[in-house]
């Protein structure tokens, strides 16, 4: 639902410049354009709330700011939507500065992006909220900016954030209006063509320089409707995000859809039926700023003694004890699209890594975890991610925030098989089984057919590269759906791809063959029949379990050859010859040979210094213990890592 909105931003990827700062800002009303299609679906419950804008001013709190001073008509909840790198976070920094939420200094860079990974990659991974106080026409408005991630992988986060908004800003990069290759006219034309948004409604801004940023805030007040929530209704709030604080437990981000909630109130989770006492609540500016009460239409945080993130399920509804309300519709849980094994570099790190993964999952409920173990890599997990960037970000957060060193195996996708016999169906409890691990791949004789996940991919590139891109897509088993010019020399191509074909290196190849100009985005496109086979890898005739892969028949030969070569390069020579083979069933389809060592002995122990030699040998002996023995072949962990890891 929200995806079309997102995908469309891929249009402007060719303009990507890391520090691009000019944006065309488009403010949309809920009632028009694609934004409405998003909000309508996400906000069914909002419509049912009567548009009461009544406001009582009994606030007696001696807070630095009394939230009762902001009735719904002076509240605007909005998000900024932009493609990665288009400068959303820079605009957010300026908005924070203009409204005095943060001091205006040169060092304000990506203030809302708190994670190291966000700052390093210049991306937003975790949605953040900032309440801004804005003077407009002599009145103070409460503008709640809910920053969202810009990548399709994080659309789940985005959809949650949007559910708490009544409007969004759409940012499109026009390649720096202040530079000479800026081309705002063309970008406006593209926006008109793709989104059907009149070009007159766009605002040309430079977030870096602050040009026209104030106008953005004026338009937010003028063009985004206030929330439709009544302060005299029963308290009702949507949990749209949650984070975990080691000292205070779960911090839930809520949007108040009716009534009010105060410190000391007893609230109930509609999902679990458990009640909690509110220890602290407040607004995010963007740091936590405690207040006494939050009122209808407002957005803030609540800490209520929840020990586990599961207790603050995203999409859950909170209401006051003994004053139940109908639960707001929740969210569909995120669906993992890409799976990868994760193992500690050293097995002694397992416990530490487990606790790091658990902690990280508290803040990212979209990751799925299954315990797994590999004979070569030891105990670990099979993790499911929303996409490739999501996987990278998770891995990087583990390394940076928890100092954990991990091996991530090459990503795979969830295949399906339709079972052939009633007996098998009974055994598995279902007719269609999902296969994540090649070890569980059912034999052809047991299935009617295999299915593989598909995606609808959109590529936009200058037309110089069309030919190259089309042949690349062909090698990836892609089927072209359509292709059209979005301007004089820019082409948008849509293809259906098997997901498996794009999870490893497709994007890198696309980027390099188009000198970085091509953009790529994809969305789920269901499952399709596929000729899948399981390929084994043998060392001197013995299959190596952890190397087996599921692959499309067409790709078996080239993949088998490539993996055999990688194995050949990463298994050290031994005292005998080693045959490395790829096999489908009993048929060998590729072979490499690792020649035997012919000499491995070195000279002299100078002056009786045998200590050094002994140390080296003992180290080798220890290393040998850790190697995985297949037949009489010692395979070091590194060899597995080289073959299994993401390249």
């Amino acid at each position, binding site marked *: 639902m929200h995806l079309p909105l997102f995908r469309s931003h891929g249009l402007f990827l060719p303009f990507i410049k890391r520090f691009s700062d000019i944006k065309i800002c488009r403010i949309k009303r809920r009632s028009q354009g694609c934004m409405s299609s998003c909000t309508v679906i996400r906000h069914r419950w909002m419509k049912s709330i009567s548009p009461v804008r009544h406001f009582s001013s009994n606030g007696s709190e001696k807070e630095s700011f009394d939230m009762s001073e902001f009735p719904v008509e002076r509240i605007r909840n909005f998000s900024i939507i932009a493609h990665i790198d288009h400068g959303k976070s820079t605009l957010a920094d300026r908005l924070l500065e203009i409204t005095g939420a943060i001091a205006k200094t040169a060092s304000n860079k990506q203030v809302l992006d708190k994670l190291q990974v966000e700052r390093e990659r210049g991306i937003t991974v975790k949605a953040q909220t900032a309440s801004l106080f804005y003077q407009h026409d002599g009145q103070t408005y409460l503008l709640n900016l809910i920053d969202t991630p810009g990548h399709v992988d994080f659309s789940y986060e985005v959809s949650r954030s949007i559910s708490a908004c009544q409007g969004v800003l759409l940012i499109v990069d026009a390649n720096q209006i202040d530079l000479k290759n800026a081309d705002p006219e063309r970008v406006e034309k593209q926006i008109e063509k793709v989104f059907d948004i009149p070009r007159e409604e766009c605002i040309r801004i430079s977030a870096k320089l602050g040009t026209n940023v104030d106008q953005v805030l004026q338009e937010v007040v003028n063009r985004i409707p206030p929330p439709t929530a009544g302060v005299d209704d029963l308290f009702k709030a949507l949990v749209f995000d949650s984070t975990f604080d080691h000292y205070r437990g779960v911090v839930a981000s809520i949007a108040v859809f009716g009534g009010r909630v105060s410190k000391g109130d007893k609230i109930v989770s509609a999902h679990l039926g458990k009640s909690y006492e509110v220890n602290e609540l407040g607004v995010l500016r963007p740091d936590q700023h405690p207040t006494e009460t939050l009122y209808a239409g407002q957005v803030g945080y609540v800490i209520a003694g929840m020990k586990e993130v599961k207790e603050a399920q995203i999409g859950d509804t909170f209401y006051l004890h003994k004053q139940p309300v109908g639960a707001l519709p929740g969210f569909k849980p995120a669906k993992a699209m890409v799976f990868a094994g994760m193992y500690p570099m050293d097995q002694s790190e397992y416990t530490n890594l487990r606790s790091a993964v658990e902690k990280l999952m508290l803040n990212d409920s979209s990751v799925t975890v299954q315990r797994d173990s590999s004979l070569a890599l030891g105990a670990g997990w099979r993790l499911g991610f929303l996409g490739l960037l999501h996987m990278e970000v998770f891995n990087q957060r583990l390394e940076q925030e928890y100092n954990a060193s991990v091996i991530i195996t090459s990503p795979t996708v969830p295949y399906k098989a339709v079972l052939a016999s009633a007996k098998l169906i009974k055994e598995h409890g279902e007719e269609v089984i999902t296969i994540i691990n090649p070890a569980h791949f059912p034999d052809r004789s047991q299935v009617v057919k295999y299915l593989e996940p598909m995606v609808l991919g959109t590529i936009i590139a200058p037309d110089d590269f069309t030919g190259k891109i089309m042949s690349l897509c062909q090698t990836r088993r892609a089927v072209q759906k359509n292709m059209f010019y979005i301007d004089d020399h820019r082409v948008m191509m849509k293809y259906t791809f098997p997901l498996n074909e794009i999870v490893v290196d497709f994007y890198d190849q696309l980027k390099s063959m188009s000198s970085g100009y091509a953009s790529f985005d994809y969305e789920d496109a269901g499952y399709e029949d596929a000729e899948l086979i399981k390929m084994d890898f043998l060392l001197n005739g013995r299959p190596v379990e952890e190397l087996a892969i599921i692959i499309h028949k067409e790709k078996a030969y080239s993949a088998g050859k490539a993996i055999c070569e990688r194995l050949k390069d990463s298994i050290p*020579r*031994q*005292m*005998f010859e080693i045959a490395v083979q790829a096999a489908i069933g009993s048929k060998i389809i590729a072979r490499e040979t690792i*020649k035997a*060592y*012919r*000499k*491995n*002995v*070195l*000279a*002299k*122990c*100078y*002056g*009786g*210094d*045998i*200590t050094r*030699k*002994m140390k080296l*040998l*003992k180290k*080798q*002996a220890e*290393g*040998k*213990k850790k190697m995985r023995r297949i037949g*009489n072949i010692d395979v070091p962990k590194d060899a597995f890592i080289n073959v299994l890891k993401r390249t």
Partner: protein
Amino acid sequence: MSRRALLKQHQALLCLGTAVGSVPLRSIATHRLPPRADEASLYVHWPYCLKRCSYCNFNKYIPRSQNHAVMTECLQKETQTLLQLSQVSRISSVFFGGGTPSLAQPSTIAAVLETVSKNAHLSDDAEVTLEVNPTPAGKASLKDFMLAGVNRFSIGIQSLNDDHLRILRRDHNSQHALQTVSEARTLCPGRVSVDVMFALPGQSVKSWESELEKLLPVCDDHVSLYQLTLERGTQLYKQVESGELSVPGDDVTAVMYKSARRDLENAGFCQYEVSNFAKNNAVSEHNIGYWRGHQYIGVGPGAHGRFVPRAVGGAQREARTQTLEPDVWIREVQHHGHGTRRRIQLDHRGLLEEVLVMGLRMNEGITQQHWELFSPEADLKLIFGMSENFQELQVGGLLILDDRGLRCSWEGLALLDSILPTMLLELEMFFQSKGYQEDAQHLRNTDIQRDR
């Protein structure tokens, strides 16, 4: 004359692998001490060189000035201290290594040998080797070294190719090398060894073979053959890393090693160790001592030793290292009588590990009697015989275990470094299966700092 005959006699048949050497076997069943604790060989390290060779990362110093008198005094002092500490009654051989010990004054050598004689029995027959750099100066002093008591020369000719010698940054050329060998052979017939290196930058199998061909007619009865090892931190390492020079790959060096073994054997040399070849049984007794796990005392900066410090009540063999830097070492010797920097006690398993690793380097391997000396309670067959991994090596024709003992086959010797980790693991597993109390384990890896 008579000494040479005697040496030859007790070294006879070594190539056939039946003799165990000159020293009668003794069981340690009646001793608490490790075998042969009352005898040792002596290694003396001379740490100075004139020039830095591009491949060498050994402990050596290019001095601006050198006080021979102080050095002599300290070497003597440390020799005396350590001999007394070990309480050995006999020194079986002496080896002056370096550095460039041929830069030492002959009087220094004489003084050290004299100290040895004063503190232990040093037989007239005992092998006394000096490493020599084949420079004109080295050649000129050979005679004086002989008079000082040296009776064997080990000449580091390294190569007979002048281009290679330049790359290695040696301070001699091939002409000097040939002249020095010739002089040494005249002075000390049958007791001259040459060190040669292969796998040099730019070397081909063919050029290596022709170099050997040139060498064989001029060398004496002993050849040491070393593959050039690129050591981190050396100039040569950097040159190879940067691509300025390239060294032959594994397959090429394998062929080089193989052809050298073949050519030397055809020329009447017998390979008695991985890198060492002798004809007329002119083996290096000193080096055989290392490989047979005998005690040795290391004197001089950075020298290593393996002996039981009996004078302080020690009952276990220790791995000892002397202080590396000559100036510091000198100060320590002057103040404490010795410059021992590190002492690590070798427990039973640690000792057997060294016996295994060193012993398998020899052509004769480890004889049953030799092993029994160190491990009277468990023979080779008991430890290795049943192991699957060992049997694999045996079936593969790399190792031989029979009534004579344990040894590498001809092919196996070339693969020793791949074989040893397996053997060490087997030894470890045997110890674990027997539940041996490794009571000294906590000491094994602990450095015992000398009290100052």
